[in-house]
């Protein structure tokens, strides 16, 4: 099998006012691994969902082996030979059934199958499926007893029983260890030799280097770069995906004040390289890097959700090991968490209650909340950040995404802190709200240290005094935000540059 089984032309999709796909043209050739890169919100998952029948496109078409193809349900796509392995491994398997039943799940679910089970026959068919991929499972084992990697392989083996023409792997290694991932790659190699077209979605540069035959970068709903000649231009692809265009926000780098937070040889994972970092008052630092390089783990260590694997953290010169969010807040470290829908917003509450939630003990007498005091704080936050609303009693759900995010940022700005950490504060926020939030963060940064974690380089450039780059759970680069060498940052983000002598850079930054 060769050729180009999937041809996508002019694909468009919008959700309400939001144009998610703006004319996507993409060929996915057989026998090759096409890696699809793109930041959050670039439209990768929407594209995949159209191909596998979850969404219908608004315009444009998909051709499968030369014929127009517009599946209306996932099972229709599956019948046509489009197989998807999802990021969440447990979506692909039934943990409480044994391996044989999992491999035969599609047969079991098919209403045309025989009503009475013949266990021996099922086992034999399951073994055939596994053997095709050279996998050797104990068929009687419960899937819940398998490792994540083995579950993933079971899901893929099951998918392969359909003799797929296109296999979509959506961040398949995100919960696997390096050696487990290697087993997956071996399987991907096998599929490639078998002539299957593979669309591989990933943020992990090490994976991409291992499997990619071609790289396609996506940004803002279009394909912005395609790389297929050896050697592949990985930095070019990352550059396309992050779409760096010199930002028009002008940063006047502030002189850092006294040292507030000090990380000494902190390890996020037992095997990861140590992090050394000093953060000062009157300083905004941005930590950038791809998804899954340890940015969120770093916030968890600083906000008391997990303990560091090694090293020490000092806050204002004293040892700092928070046991919980409460503990961190009491010591003056605030975190505005990412994914506000799950981690920040209390959906049943109005704006006022969302803003004052962490500070209720200082706003109440004998346990009774002082209404006047809390509304003063809320109204202050509303006017300070320009939150568009009728009143402080509007339900948070009635606000736009940008305004909800302003409420979250306003919450943590409403009380003074020593260290304010914001994890992806511009997620799902329009450009105007992003500017408002950025300006407000810089205006108020004087008396605290501010750490902003962002995947997009542009966002780092328009907010930070200092930009740190993370890769593989450690810091690999440090740049003062003046005449930044963007190419060097991109190299460090994509893991191309060997971690540089940070000491040297630090001196450079201090100059």
């Amino acid at each position, binding site marked *: 099998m060769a050729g180009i089984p999937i041809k996508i032309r002019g694909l468009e999709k919008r959700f309400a006012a939001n144009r998610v796909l703006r004319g996507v043209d993409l060929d996915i050739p057989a026998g090759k691994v096409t890696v699809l890169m793109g930041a959050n919100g670039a439209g990768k998952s929407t594209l995949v969902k159209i191909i596998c029948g979850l969404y219908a496109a608004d315009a444009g078409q998909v051709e499968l082996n030369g014929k127009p193809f517009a599946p209306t349900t996932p099972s229709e796509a599956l019948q046509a030979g489009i197989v998807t392995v999802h990021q969440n491994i447990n979506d692909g398997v039934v943990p409480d059934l044994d391996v044989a039943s999992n491999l035969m799940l599609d047969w079991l679910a098919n209403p045309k199958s025989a009503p009475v089970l013949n266990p021996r026959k099922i086992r034999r068919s399951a073994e055939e499926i596994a053997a095709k991929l050279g996998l050797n499972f104990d068929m009687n084992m419960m899937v819940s007893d398998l490792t994540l990697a083995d579950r993933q392989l079971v899901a893929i083996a099951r998918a392969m029983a359909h003799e797929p023409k296109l296999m979509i792997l959506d961040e398949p290694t995100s919960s696997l260890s390096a050696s487990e991932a290697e087993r997956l790659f071996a399987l991907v190699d096998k599929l490639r030799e078998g002539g299957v077209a593979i669309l591989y979605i990933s943020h992990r540069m090490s994976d991409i280097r291992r499997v990619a035959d071609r790289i396609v970068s996506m940004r803002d709903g279009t394909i912005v770069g395609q790389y297929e000649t050896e050697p592949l231009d990985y930095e070019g692809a990352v550059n396309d995906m992050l779409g760096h265009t010199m930002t028009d926000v002008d940063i006047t780098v502030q002189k850092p004040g006294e040292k507030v937070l000090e990380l000494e040889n902190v390890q996020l994972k037992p095997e990861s390289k140590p992090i050394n970092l000093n953060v000062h008052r009157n300083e905004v630092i941005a930590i950038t890097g791809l998804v899954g390089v340890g940015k969120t783990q770093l916030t968890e260590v600083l906000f008391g959700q997990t303990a560091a694997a090694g090293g020490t953290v000092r806050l204002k010169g004293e040892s700092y090991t928070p046991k919980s*969010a409460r503990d*961190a807040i009491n010591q003056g470290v605030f975190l505005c968490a990412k994914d506000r829908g799950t981690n920040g*917003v*209390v959906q049943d509450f109005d704006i006022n209650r969302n803003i004052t*939630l962490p500070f209720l003990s200082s706003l109440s007498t004998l346990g009774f*909340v002082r209404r006047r005091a809390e509304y003063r704080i809320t109204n202050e936050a509303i006017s300070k950040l320009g939150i568009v609303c009728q009143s402080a009693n509007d339900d948070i759900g009635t606000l736009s995404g940008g305004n909800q995010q302003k409420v979250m940022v306003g919450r943590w700005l409403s009380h003074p802190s020593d260290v304010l950490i914001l994890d992806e504060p511009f997620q799902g926020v329009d450009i105007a709200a992003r500017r408002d939030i950025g300006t407000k963060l810089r205006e108020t940064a004087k008396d605290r240290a501010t750490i902003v974690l962002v995947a997009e380089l542009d966002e780092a450039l328009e907010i930070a005094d200092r930009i740190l780059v993370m890769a593989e759970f450690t810091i690999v680069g440090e740049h003062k935000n003046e005449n930044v060498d963007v190419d060097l940052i991109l190299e460090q983000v994509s893991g191309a540059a060997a971690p540089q002598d940070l000491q040297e850079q630090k001196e450079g930054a201090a100059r």
Partner: protein
Amino acid sequence: MSETRVNKKSMSLTDYAIRYGFVALLVGLVVYFSVAADGFASPYSAVFIFQSVAITGILALGVTATLVVDGFDLSIGAVATSALMLSAYVMVVMEQSALVAVVACLLMGALVGLINGFLIVQMRVPDLLATLGMMFLLIGLQRIPTEGRSIATGMSLPDGSTAAGSFSPEFLALGRHRFDFFIDNLIPVSVVFLIVIAIGIWLFLEYTRYGRVMYAIGSNQRAASLAGVPVKKYKIIAYMISGVLASVGGILLAARLGRGDIASGNNLLLDSVAAALIGFAVLGAAKPNAFGTAVGALFVGILLQGLTMMNAPYYTQDFVKGGVLVVALMFTFALSNRR
């Protein structure tokens, strides 16, 4: 654009129905019974209704606290009957005073709540299963000391002797005394308890930071935790409130009955859970709330009293209660989810 406007208009009508539908129904019922049933509209009838719902209402307020933190407590009925048996045992068999009996029951309720909370928060047992298990455990436990017999003054003990203690008059007063209120001997103690507890829980949930935080936990536990809320502590507190209020209900029941009757209190669990769930529909709250729970309990009481006075047979009562509950749940979920 025009479509949204049409939608908005019909929504506001639905909103109106959600908000006042249940209260309107309640008022309608009262008016209907006042006209149709002789003697329904009298202070004695009103007090009777209050008295009939006092104990379930108190239990329901406890369940409300657990519902607020997105939990559930199925053990309240068993806690109440355990308190009933325990108070009788302490006074009749152990010959202690009313005060000792009351304190023992309250401690028992708090302890059961603590264990429930521990099972749910620390052992990660799902709330329904943990409290169901606790329910069975307590139903069994309360029978062991007396080898399955009811406790009454002068009962014979397993060792052949006769129990020397008795229900003290102070304790019985909790169930039988009536305060003067315009009319002599009108308001029973249990009704006063209900009113005080309802107001207390309402203030606690609506106006204190503890209540606020509990609602935050119920809506988005993760967000609450990242805002610095000690989620586990509050969940345990919610179950302890539930346990203590259930034991208060049990004490009042014991004081009314004047004996530790093994078979009483069978309906407590279902009635009080129904009251708390009906409360979701009151004023379109669509969430557990103390005011709604109290109104929900009253609603059931009024309906049953009215039907009884109109000579509806007693065996239709559970059917009526079930019907009310189903309609109220429909109100809450179908209508309010459209918002």
